């Protein structure tokens, strides 16, 4: 692509970050800690300064829709103190790669020598009539969570559509809050893409024991409306689930519109290289929206907290011309009921699985091996094992499977002795 920003000598005085979220805020913070002294515009469509999304399906709901003490990434004075021009509640409507500008929906135009697209994604809407009713909740933003919190009343009948991470966490929160919960999931188990069949089935059992009525292998065909609200969810087989509110967790759609309009290369998101650079050398992307090189080869788009934070920081360094090679295995956690579940790397049923602890005890660590190479791990209430597991995967460690399987061999010792 020929259209590069006319940036003259490599002196960067203006950086625009589009997306005032984890990736964007981390980028702004990293620019300043790297000594960058020029302008930073941090532009967010949401009206709130950057905040933590993980609590939105958990603590934020239990605490009645009130943000906890460390909900926001920075206090409100941080932005002015660090000369970050924070623009909230305004959409960036266009980027002009030749002129080196970002145009806001307000009509204002900002100069930008470098642009970071940390635009994230939007919750995928349920494509059915009635999905815009006030008691149908999608969950992505603080505003979404505030609306949902108001409907999670003790005794309320909640139908969860989709048992991915968001659906499963909200199901657990709703049970905790005394709601009656029915979940509908087309796959055979919750979080099956993240956990695989075997551990997905384990988690499905766990939800059942916690009183969730879960209907797997079923899908939603329609919504029955009454007085502007959805009063029942209609399934593919005609069964109707009466409800007070519906929670839809069917994934996100990456926000690629700006990139698309600017002619940047798209894949499953905005294509970037290991320098977080798009097909235009002055434009970078990070976080949920970035289609990036996969640690295991090929490409991947990651919707994880860790990736948003670390790729945002990596993109900041790359925008300043520092050497960057960002390519990490995924890592994420999910807290449901009294379970802390963590996954790193690739969970692949085809691989050899080595267990520490027992699935029946709801406390285990499963290592996934390709030969003697540790390619992934899953822990449930064995978080102490994950610190080592993450490093085994990151370092492409080769281990002796028999020692990994021996509970008497400390994992730290295996890490120390592993060859990579």
């Amino acid at each position, binding site marked *: 692509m020929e259209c590069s920003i006319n940036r003259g000598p490599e002196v960067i005085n203006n950086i625009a970050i589009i997306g005032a979220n984890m990736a964007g805020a981390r980028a702004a913070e990293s620019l300043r800690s790297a000594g960058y002294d020029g302008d930073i515009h941090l532009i967010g469509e949401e009206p709130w300064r950057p905040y933590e999304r993980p609590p939105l399906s958990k603590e934020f709901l239990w605490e009645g829709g009130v943000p906890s003490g460390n909900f926001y990434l920075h206090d409100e004075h941080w932005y002015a103190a660090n000369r970050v021009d924070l623009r909230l509640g305004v959409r960036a409507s266009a980027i002009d790669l030749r002129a080196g500008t970002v145009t806001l929906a307000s009509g204002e135009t900002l100069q930008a020598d470098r642009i970071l697209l940390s635009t994230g994604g939007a919750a995928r809407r349920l494509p059915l009539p009635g999905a815009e009713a006030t008691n149908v909740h999608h969950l992505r933003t603080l505003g979404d969570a505030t609306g949902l919190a108001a409907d999670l009343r003790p005794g309320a009948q909640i139908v969860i559509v989709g048992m991915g991470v968001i659906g499963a966490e909200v199901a657990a929160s709703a049970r905790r809050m005394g709601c009656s919960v029915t979940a509908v999931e087309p796959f055979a188990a919750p979080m099956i893409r993240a956990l695989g069949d075997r551990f997905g089935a384990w988690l499905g059992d766990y939800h059942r024991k916690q009183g969730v009525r879960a209907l797997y292998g079923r899908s939603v065909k329609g919504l029955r409306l009454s007085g502007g609200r959805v009063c029942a969810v209609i399934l593919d087989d005609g069964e109707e689930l009466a409800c007070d509110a519906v929670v839809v967790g069917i994934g996100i759609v990456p926000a690629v519109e700006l990139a698309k309009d600017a002619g940047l290369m798209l894949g499953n998101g905005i294509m970037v290289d290991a320098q977080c650079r798009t097909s235009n050398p002055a434009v970078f992307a990070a976080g949920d929206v970035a289609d990036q090189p996969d640690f295991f080869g090929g490409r991947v788009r990651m919707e994880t907290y860790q990736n948003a934070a670390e790729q945002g920081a990596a993109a900041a360094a790359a925008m300043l011309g520092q050497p960057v090679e960002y390519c990490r295995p995924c890592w994420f956690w999910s807290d449901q009921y009294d379970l802390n579940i963590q996954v790193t790397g690739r969970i692949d049923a085809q691989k050899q699985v080595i267990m520490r602890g027992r699935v029946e005890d709801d406390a285990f660590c499963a290592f996934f091996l390709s030969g003697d190479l540790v390619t992934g791990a899953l822990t449930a209430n064995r*978080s102490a094992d994950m610190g080592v597991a993450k490093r085994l995967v990151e370092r492409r460690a080769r281990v002796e499977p028999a020692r990994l399987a021996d509970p008497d061999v400390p994992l730290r010792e295996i890490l120390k002795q592993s060859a990579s």
Partner: protein
Amino acid sequence: MERIRLCPIDGPKDDEPVAIPAGAYPPLAVYKVDGKFYVTSNICTHGNAHLTDGYQDGATIECPFHGGAFDIPTGAATTYPCQIALKTYAVTIEDGWVTIDAPGEPEG
């Protein structure tokens, strides 16, 4: 000043902290970093995890739940999602024990 004995000095090893259950103090973590001993609260300021279940790498302790991290000598939060510093305690080595000062009389 009365001192509280937490653990013998051969307890914590480099990168292998020791958990001290709550007593006169909240749960504590005792670390050894380059031959020196440090004590912090053992409860992450973000989640509800015990830091001694986390991954110590030299002077850094990584929380086992959500991957945040703290600087052990100062307690400062160094990695998201941790933002609030850990409480740290001054250590005295006495008769082969890692000790800290007993809590004073509550004021007011």
